[in-house]
């Protein structure tokens, strides 16, 4: 710090020159020099005594403070070392420039020498030695700049996609089945963002069980896809899981019928809302000629933990009985649950790897895969839209016609794999099924869960009870006057909630209670 103070002494002297007191300057300085030296000795004595009292040397701190107040050209705060904790920030760079310019305008002569000297000093060489660490007064990110940087990143990534990305850009037709329930927000939000990010044109066909509803429309309005079709399917979604699976199969066939009627071009992808897609999935799907198959990973134990644990305990009992006492969770923990095509070493399709999850109770969501029901999921397959068109002549002979596979005579749920006459013709995607681009999150709330669909509570809860955990004595609580009753009920009244009747009953009761209350206040 002494060095810094010393280097700035010449500027201070020149500033005195500028004020014009040249004649008595010398006598002033002479007087000042003796007074300064006397002053400094006095100060040093004071510091010495202070140090003896306090117990440590604080002369450096004092010098720092003194020097910092004589540095008008500091525009940033300077931290001079790890020991100095205080940060002093003075002024703003733009103000400083303005001030310097004013001073130059006022008195150019005296300023020119000083300025040129500093300019020369800065141009000739960089100083060796200790420099200040410059920190701006608000060293935090500016949101406007962050957005600008993100625009830059997006532009760079777009350029990368154009240069190195997939050359094929067939449009994608995504068929999704949904229905209003507690977890719809969780699944549908993820899916709509994924589809919005797909770099090619996406036509999103959403089939909703129970008819078109506002809640779903609210979500879908946020999707940035090329074309959005929100279609309603008459029947409501049943509560049982097996029946749900069958209804979903019918709804998907309905979506495919729409593709068939409108003669849409592109690649049909069954984007279930509880699936997690990586964007590579859409790139990989472009490689399809007619029918493609890929692996889907299964996430979640699909149920309550204790059930799975109890199952594992059963397994453990068997293993103990057989004499193997090692890892209790060996059957469950690190086995990848992947379902899809499997190939031999040359890459030819030899079979399907169907994972058999631990069967749990019926009431919880176990997924469609039950032991006796070895079927592949619809999202395992990716179709060329032309495979379902009416012009049967264009399709290869190993693809069945629509009437053969889409409407089974016995009324059972259609299966996508039934579209194939010959399994071997399927194009296996994702490095022969080894790369998992798609994950099925088997997590659902219970069918009778009354969580609001949008995860937003617009009104108060039904019962408001004051908390009684305060240490103060009980006092009669003054309940505030109730808000005016809403004009119309905004809660959906579909049977899909499962407890719709109960809700409406509750509302009726509440309104009755409201009417009886106004006497209190």
């Amino acid at each position, binding site marked *: 710090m002494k060095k810094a103070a010393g280097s700035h002494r010449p500027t201070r002297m020149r500033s005195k020159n500028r004020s014009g007191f040249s004649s008595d300057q010398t006598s002033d300085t002479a007087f000042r020099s003796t007074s300064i030296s006397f002053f400094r000795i006095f100060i040093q004595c004071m510091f010495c005594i202070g140090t003896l009292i306090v117990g440590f040397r604080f002369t450096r701190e004092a010098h720092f403070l003194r020097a910092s107040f004589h540095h008008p050209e500091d525009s*940033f705060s300077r*931290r*001079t*070392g*790890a*020991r100095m904790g205080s940060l002093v920030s003075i002024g703003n760079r733009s103000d400083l420039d303005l001030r310097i310019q004013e001073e130059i305008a006022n008195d150019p002569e005296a300023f020119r020498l000083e300025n040129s000297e500093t300019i020369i000093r800065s141009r*000739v*060489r*960089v*100083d*060796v*030695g*200790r*420099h*200040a*660490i*410059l*920190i*701006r007064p608000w*060293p*935090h*990110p*500016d949101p406007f*700049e*962050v957005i*600008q*940087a993100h*625009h*830059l*990143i997006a*532009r*760079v*990534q777009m*350029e*990368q*996609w*154009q*240069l*190195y*990305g*997939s050359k094929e850009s067939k449009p994608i037709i995504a068929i999704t089945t949904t229905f209003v329930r507690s977890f719809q927000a969780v699944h549908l939000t993820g899916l709509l963002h994924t589809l919005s990010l797909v770099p090619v044109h996406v036509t999103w066909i959403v089939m909703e069980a129970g008819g078109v509803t506002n809640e779903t429309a609210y979500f879908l309005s946020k999707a940035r896809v090329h074309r959005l079709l929100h279609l309603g399917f008459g029947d409501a979604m049943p509560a049982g899981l097996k029946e749900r699976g069958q209804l979903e199969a019918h709804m998907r066939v309905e979506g495919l019928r729409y593709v068939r009627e409108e003669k849409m071009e592109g690649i049909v992808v069954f984007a279930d809302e509880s699936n997690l897609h990586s964007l590579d999935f859409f790139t990989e799907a472009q490689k399809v000629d007619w029918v493609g198959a890929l692996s889907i990973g299964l996430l979640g134990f699909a149920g309550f933990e204790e059930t799975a644990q109890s199952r594992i305990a059963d397994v453990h009992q068997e293993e103990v009985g057989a004499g193997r006492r090692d890892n209790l969770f060996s059957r469950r923990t690190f086995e990848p649950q992947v379902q899809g095509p499997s190939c031999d070493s040359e890459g030819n399709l030899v079979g399907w790897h169907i994972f058999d999850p631990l069967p749990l109770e019926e009431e919880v969501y176990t997924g469609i895969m039950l032991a006796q029901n070895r079927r592949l999921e619809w999202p395992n397959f990716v179709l060329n839209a032309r495979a379902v068109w009416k012009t049967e002549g264009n399709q290869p002979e190993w693809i069945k016609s629509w009437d053969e596979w889409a409407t089974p005579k016995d009324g059972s749920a259609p299966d996508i794999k039934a579209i194939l006459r010959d399994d071997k013709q399927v194009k296996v995607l994702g490095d022969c099924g080894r790369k998992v681009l798609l994950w099925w999150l088997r997590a659902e709330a219970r069918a009778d869960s009354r969580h609001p669909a949008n995860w937003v509570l617009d009104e108060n809860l039904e019962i408001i009870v004051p908390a009684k955990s305060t240490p103060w004595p009980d006092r009669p609580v003054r309940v505030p006057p109730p808000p005016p009753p809403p004009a119309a009920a905004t809660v959906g009244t579909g049977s899909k909630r499962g407890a719709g009747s109960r809700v409406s009953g509750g509302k009726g009761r509440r309104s009755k209670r409201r009417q009886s209350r106004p006497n209190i206040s």
Partner: protein
Amino acid sequence: MVVGFLLLLLMPSSRSATSISVVDRNVVVGEMGDMLQLRKRRRRRRGHVSLLTCVVGFLFLCQVSRLAAAAVLHRHQRISGSAGDVLEDNPVGRLKVFVYELPSKYNKDWLEKDPRCLTHMFAAEEFVHDFLLTSPVRTHNPKEADWFYTPVYTTCDLMPNGLPLPFKSPRIMRSAISYISTHWPYWNRTEGADHFFVVPHDFGACFHYQEEKAIERGVLPLLKHATLVQTFGQNHHVCLKEGSIVVPPYAPPEKMQSRFIPPNTPRSIFVYFRGLFYDVGNDPEGGYYARGARAAVWENFKDNPLFDISTQHPSTYYEDMQRAIFCLCPLGWAPWSPRLVEGVIFGCIPVIIADDIVLPFADAIPWEKIGVFVAEKDVPNLDKILSSISPEQVLEKQRLLANPAMKQAMLFSQPALPGDAFHQILNGLARKLPHDPHIYLEPGQMVLNWTEGPVGDLKPW
């Protein structure tokens, strides 16, 4: 252009088609004299019209093909620096280099003692020697040589932790020079003006790792006239001689080239840096290391989500660089760093924070167009500066970086490939030819003072 020619060829056939239809019409009209005149006029008009359509069609096709060619996305762009389009020049045939045969105590013995010299960032001196021994520019006849190379490894005296000790280097260099001046007449002929040396250490031929001491020592007096090939480059600095060739530090090419990721992996990191901000061992108070610039980067941007900066060195360092748009290359104890080479190889735009730095091969590579230069005093505004660069500029810089000639020029590849750093050094030497005739001294004329320099350097080695 080809399509235009084809159309020209097709035009006569269309002309005949029109003539047939006109003849039919003439027959329908039915008057002989008028028919003849009409036919003549029509033929002339037809000739004019068809010629015009030919020319117009040709021009149109030319324009279309040119526009189409321009619209095709260029992956990389040609690089031409201040010396012209010299990055891909071939030095073979433009110069001749004579390699002195020094006793092995100057070169091979050091390697045998410590083979780490071949992998650290100063390994350029060993690889240049290796390259010149088998290069077509080498000549065994010193009389026809333009340049003379002395293979002395001054940076191979390594400490146990791997860093080179420069304390014996001046004596080693003096000893080598006295050897060549006594055994061959070519040093005394020019006092070293047509000799070149590779001195890749921190501050070049000043032979010290501390900047103040290096400035105090200055360039070794005996090397006053020689050309120095060094990694250090800073304007107006004592340790950068006029006419030196600045080269990149050595980075192992196989190690980097084996870690490429697919180019369609989106670049999602905005700014990337891994390295020290405070050198607590040598500079505990801060402000000395990197002139406070690295510490300023940390203090200003440690909580900025766009800046992926840390001291933790991950195992995916090279892969992360390929996922970043900007890579910071701030100065450390010396202004140069291998991050520049790594950034260029992995397509990450280097952000150079070192005042007055001279970058490698600065006359062949236009670094201002490729990298972003930020003054040390502007470091607190780094996020503002970087986010305000327009996307077109960023894309252009990335295109220049994608040029394979650029990546090749930064590497000391084994075996040598055309356009690599060895060739750039030779090109630089070739650009300094022909030698000024004033460098040739009269016999007996001595310019260098052999007793100049600190006393410790004068001890024989």
